[in-house]
């Protein structure tokens, strides 16, 4: 299988390199170390996912099966372009002017987003603002290393965001692991788990580099090339397989919409 994901690495004002398409390694399940001290893991079923009786405010009791009633069983779908190219271009122009970032700092890189909210760098003049919930955001900045535990939350957040949505990988850790390249608990390639539109290299990248990265993302959106959400829908099974390969306690629906 080929990964046809165009991931660009941005540092400062210029584009440094373009990632080639790469083969997906056929990987075995994680091996238990020889002579390992192992413990048995019994995953407790989560109470909020269990079938239960709920009493409504009017006193009527009814049965709730959260996985069926609270979540949509259908997977993500590809969002078709508008009926005319000029209309789609207009939409893309408008989308590029309203970048709403999910305020979820996944790693230490989140510290570089704070100056952008201040008068000194003032990202708001570029039409960029931060929102407190995935439902109101369309850009997810993965700010630095992602531990497996955080990746699980990041996937949930990404899937709850509305289309069209974009992902920016901030810092070296999202590109190749950075200084956590030999860690037991952090992923090394973000684009195996979420569709990444732009990478901003550095450890850490300066706020100026972030602004440049956002400008680069805007160019991609205007050119109609920021199709991460559609890629995610098209290659949903591939992304899920990758995610489940490292998240061993998968206790949530496959699609968290």
């Amino acid at each position, binding site marked *: 299988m080929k990964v046809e994901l165009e991931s660009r690495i941005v540092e400062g004002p210029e584009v440094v390199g373009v990632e080639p398409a790469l083969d997906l390694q056929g990987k075995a399940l994680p091996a*238990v170390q020889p002579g390992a001290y192992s413990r048995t893991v019994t995953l407790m079923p989560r109470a909020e996912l269990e079938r239960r009786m709920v009493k409504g405010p009017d006193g009527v009791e009814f049965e709730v099966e959260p996985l069926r009633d609270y979540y949509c069983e259908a997977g993500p779908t590809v969002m078709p372009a508008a009926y005319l190219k000029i209309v789609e271009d207009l939409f893309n122009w408008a989308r590029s002017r309203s970048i709403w970032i999910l305020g979820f700092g996944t790693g230490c890189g989140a510290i570089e987003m704070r100056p952008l909210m201040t008068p000194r760098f003032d990202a708001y003049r570029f039409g960029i603002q931060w929102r407190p919930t995935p439902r109101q955001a369309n850009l997810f900045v993965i700010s630095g290393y992602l531990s497996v535990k955080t990746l699980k939350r990041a996937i949930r957040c990404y899937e709850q965001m509305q289309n069209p949505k974009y992902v920016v990988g901030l810092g070296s850790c999202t590109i190749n*692991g950075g200084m956590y*390249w030999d860690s037991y608990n952090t992923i090394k390639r973000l684009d195996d788990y979420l569709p990444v539109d732009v990478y901003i290299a550095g450890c850490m990248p300066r706020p100026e580099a972030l602004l440049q990265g956002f400008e680069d993302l805007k160019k991609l959106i205007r050119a109609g090339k920021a199709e991460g959400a559609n890629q995610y829908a098209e290659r949903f099974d591939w992304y899920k397989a990758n995610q489940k390969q490292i998240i*061993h306690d998968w206790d949530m629906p496959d699609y968290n919409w």
Partner: protein
Amino acid sequence: MRELYARLKERCALGELTQQRPNLGFVTLPREQLRQALTHLRDSEGYTHLVLLTAVDWLEDGQFQLTYLLSHRTQGRDFGLRVLIPRMDAEMDSIHDLWPTAATYQRELREMFGIQFPGSPGVNDDFILEGWTGMPPYRRDFDTKRFSEENYNHRPGRETRDPTTYMKQQLYPGGL
């Protein structure tokens, strides 16, 4: 610190006092004496604050060293108690009834080192490593690099240079 050591020695069998600073000392004691010493320090000597509970893996000796660091708030002194336990089937008595915060440390030690603390509340719940099976990662025989290579997808193109030879090439391209 010497007086404290002398007073404590009347009650428990203590090892040598290692004084790292005038206000920081460590002492090793047998496992059975730990609870008595901790209770005495907390109730009679004023060491009311459990600063940390951590472990060191002495792989070659086949032992874990647990350090209970206590602090005297008004005197500004810290006193550490060290206990050596066998590494095989490591198990230690819980002290969550002396300091409730110890339960969190014990939960972390159970996950990261595989030291069991029977009776500690929530000690078997996942702390950071959700769904982890296999060897606890802070044990020194755990090969973190190999684990990372086997489990997490790698992006090719990463270069590692030996600093000495690389700087020689940069500074003296023609050779020394």
